[in-house]
């Protein structure tokens, strides 16, 4: 525990020091990034210790705030979330040092580093806090620090709008959480988590709904995800990586923590989580498919992956409810491993997107193309991330999805009717998500990195520097390692699963050992295939080395004068799929079609806005604003009138209380 506190202190002090040395961009960058890396390395030690041994470390100090106490504890659940938080934030800090350097003349670099360190400190506190008030304070620190990071380039109107949307969304979520903790605390008589016991089922259900909405807003469940497609593109890329990779996972953490507090789940909770997961997953990837902006596309993929995690949690919860250890272990195991895996590959993809943005100056997919020739490292690492996020073996994204599949397969076809239905729903939606994600990343990788440059943005690119490259390489290596070492990695989840489900440790160990044996086969087959591929590649290289290689234009398809604009665009590549699902997507198309034998200029434009934003939030907020505008007459613009309101309120309260 003391190592954790030391790490936290280094991170906070480093942030403050960076803030005060803002005049010297070099010093501010050094202090900010080095303190994050050093602090994370120190603080991650106790997290690993707790995760592997299953011991629990806690610290309780008095705090002079009413019903608050400085009660922090690292248990295996916290440790599982702490590791990706510390790891990804540290790697992204190395990247950010180079990424932010480009702004050194326009902006004070001390400010983003201060908020970056504060964001990390907030996330660390959120996952260890064991008191409702402390949790909410940490939650707000995290939310506000990330708000200031999102609005880093506040001079752009789009960024300001994104900042407002994020701020409002996060506070609506917090409002639900405040109610959640008040109700929980009133029942338990204390806001400390360890005092909670035996919640009556009606109250537990209310608390569950509050937790799903409150934490789901942060995590990005459909339809509470609207802030993600705005905030992630607006933030600097290393911040998007942290926000998408780990910050939204604090929502998942909160939900898991709430589930451990609420006791035995009724069956509808499980269905609710599976349904939310399936909807978020499928719709998230569909909307990603229709996007033209790389970071917005990745933001929708975060919604998709949160969906997969939630399906895992729902399956695990169903396992507890149906008293089926296999389902519970594999469901929670898969969902929680996906938390780590998603942090790695989504962090990697956002860093790759940042590298593209950094060197080309645009994130618009249809303006890019052919980047693999000029940015080989970025392209290769982005490819690794794309394979991982599409859930292809043997990379890490596959492992966690595979655990969920395995759980429902084993249980679904062993049990009766009521266990086949969840199996069908889960397998169907996971398969759909995986396929669509693959299509989406084929589109993104193909259009951005392959082919010929589509505009001058893509022609002027150059490979990024050492810091950015190295952090992407670290994450890409992790993607591969987590996949190949998965038979051993999943065994480390035993203490977490024990903490959540209270299934005897021996059952968990035997179940995980069986799974690990299956995974071993997959890894061996994949390694053999990979080895064969590499052998053939080497052979090809050897055979070609004696012959001359000629460079010709790509994709000329027999045309005499090919042009870069003849290539597939992102929209045309995705068109068959977006048309298939146009019922959900409701894309706006503007076509001026080709006419006649000698066609003149024609144009095609699509725009896919978010359905929940367009059909749910916009009507809701315009109704709210029109009903509030009826109260406009109260706002006279006169100071005297406003003070009269205060005086009247005072009088009414006094008279009402003293009558």
């Amino acid at each position, binding site marked *: 525990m003391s190592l954790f506190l030391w790490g936290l202190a280094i991170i906070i002090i480093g942030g403050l020091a960076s803030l005060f040395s803002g005049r010297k961009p070099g010093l501010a960058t050094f202090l900010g990034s080095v303190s994050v890396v050093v602090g994370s390395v120190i603080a991650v030690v106790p997290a690993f210790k707790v995760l592997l041994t299953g011991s629990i470390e806690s610290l309780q100090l008095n705090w002079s705030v009413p019903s608050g106490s400085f009660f922090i504890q690292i248990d295996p659940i916290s440790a599982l979330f702490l590791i990706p938080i510390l790891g990804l934030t540290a790697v992204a800090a190395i990247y950010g040092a180079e990424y932010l350097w480009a702004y050194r003349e326009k902006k004070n670099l001390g400010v983003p580093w201060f908020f970056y360190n504060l964001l990390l400190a907030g996330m660390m506190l959120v996952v260890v806090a064991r008191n409702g008030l402390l949790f909410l304070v940490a939650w707000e620190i995290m939310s506000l620090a990330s708000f200031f990071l999102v609005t880093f380039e506040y001079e752009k109107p789009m960024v300001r709008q994104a900042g407002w949307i994020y701020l409002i969304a996060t506070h609506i979520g917090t409002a639900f959480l405040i109610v959640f903790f008040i109700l929980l605390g009133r029942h338990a008589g204390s806001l400390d988590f360890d005092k909670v016991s035996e919640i009556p089922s009606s109250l537990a259900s209310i608390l569950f709904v509050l937790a799903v909405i409150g934490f789901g807003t942060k995590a990005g469940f459909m339809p509470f995800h609207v802030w993600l497609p705005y905030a992630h593109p607006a933030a600097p890329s290393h911040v998007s990586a942290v926000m998408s990779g780990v910050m939204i996972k604090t929502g998942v953490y909160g939900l898991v923590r709430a589930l451990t507090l609420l006791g035995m789940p009724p069956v509808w909770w499980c269905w609710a989580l599976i349904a939310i997961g399936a909807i978020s997953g499928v719709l998230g990837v569909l909307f990603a498919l229709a996007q033209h902006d790389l970071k917005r596309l990745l933001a929708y993929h975060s919604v998709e992956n949160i969906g997969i995690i939630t399906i895992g949690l729902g399956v695990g919860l169903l396992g507890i409810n149906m008293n089926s250890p296999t389902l519970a272990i594999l469901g929670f195991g898969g969902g929680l491993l996906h938390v780590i895996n998603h942090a790695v590959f989504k962090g990697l993809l956002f860093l790759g997107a940042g590298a593209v943005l950094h060197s080309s100056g645009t994130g618009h997919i249809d303006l890019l193309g052919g980047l693999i020739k000029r940015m080989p490292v970025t392209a290769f690492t982005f490819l690794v991330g794309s394979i991982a996020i599409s859930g292809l073996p043997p990379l890490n994204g596959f492992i966690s999805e595979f655990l969920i599949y395995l759980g429902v397969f084993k249980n679904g076809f062993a049990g009766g009717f009521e266990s086949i239905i969840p199996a069908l729903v889960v397998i169907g939606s996971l398969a759909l998500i995986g396929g669509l994600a693959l299509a989406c990343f084929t589109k993104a990788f193909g259009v951005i990195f392959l082919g010929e440059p589509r505009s001058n943005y893509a022609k002027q690119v150059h490979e990024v520097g050492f810091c950015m490259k190295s952090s992407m390489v670290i994450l890409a290596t992790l993607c591969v390692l987590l996949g190949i070492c998965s038979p051993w990695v999943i065994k480390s989840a035993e203490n977490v699963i024990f903490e959540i489900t209270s299934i005897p440790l021996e059952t968990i160990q035997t179940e995980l050992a069986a799974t690990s044996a299956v995974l071993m086969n997959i890894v061996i087959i994949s390694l053999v295939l990979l080895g064969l591929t590499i052998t053939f590649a080497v052979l090809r290289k050897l055979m070609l080395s004696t012959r001359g290689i000629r460079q010709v234009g790509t994709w000329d398809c027999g045309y005499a004068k090919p042009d870069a604009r003849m290539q597939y665009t992102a929209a045309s590549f995705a068109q068959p799929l977006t048309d298939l699902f146009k019922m959900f997507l409701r894309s706006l198309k503007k076509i001026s079609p080709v006419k006649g034998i000698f066609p003149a200029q024609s144009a095609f434009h699509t725009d896919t806005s978010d359905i929940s934003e367009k059909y749910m939030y916009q009507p809701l907020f315009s109704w709210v604003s029109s009903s509030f505008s009826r109260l406009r007459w109260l706002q006279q*613009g006169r*100071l*005297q009138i406003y003070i*009269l309101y205060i005086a009247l309120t*005072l009088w009414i309260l006094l008279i009402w209380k*003293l009558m």
Partner: protein
Amino acid sequence: MNNAADIIMIFLVLTNLMLLGLSRLGACIRFVALQGVALGFLPLILNHWDMEVHLVIFSIVIISLKGIVFPWMLNRTLRELASQREVEPFIGYGISIIAGTITLVMCMWLSSRLPFPEPLMSPLIVPVAFFTIMSGLFLIISRKKALTQVLGYLVLENGIYAFGVALVGKQPMLVELGILLDIFVAVFVMGIAIFHINREFDHIDTDQLSRLRS
């Protein structure tokens, strides 16, 4: 019996009513100053002229701030403004005084309903303190000029001060110093604000500012 305290309380009531009915800004400033000086003696009186050092210093600070510094600042502002030296009320002087008397009755009723932990030095002190607070609020609400609003705030603060002295007895220092600091800042800020409003718009009528709302 605390006759001196009662006299000060009655003096407060009279000055409040006077302020509600006065039309000259200069006279208003003088009455607020007088009120402040009278209140400065209150802690000494309530402690039976017990000449403890901190009480004496406290009284001197209060009297010099409320009786000298604030009126001096306000008078200076008034001279520099060189605008019309009249109060310009939204609510006429006669109606203001009538409203004041009704408020006084209400305050008497209120204080009779308020439970207090121990008997107070003077039965008048709570209703009068309330009445002073309410008069201050009334002045702020019903007068146009920004300067009158500063005066209203000062009267309001006098009321809070009287209340604090009555309740906390011997230890009003902390409470009062806190409040005083707030008011000092408020007077400062408002003084600057009035100066700027005057420079921008050539007048200090706050109701003209309502055109600024969107």
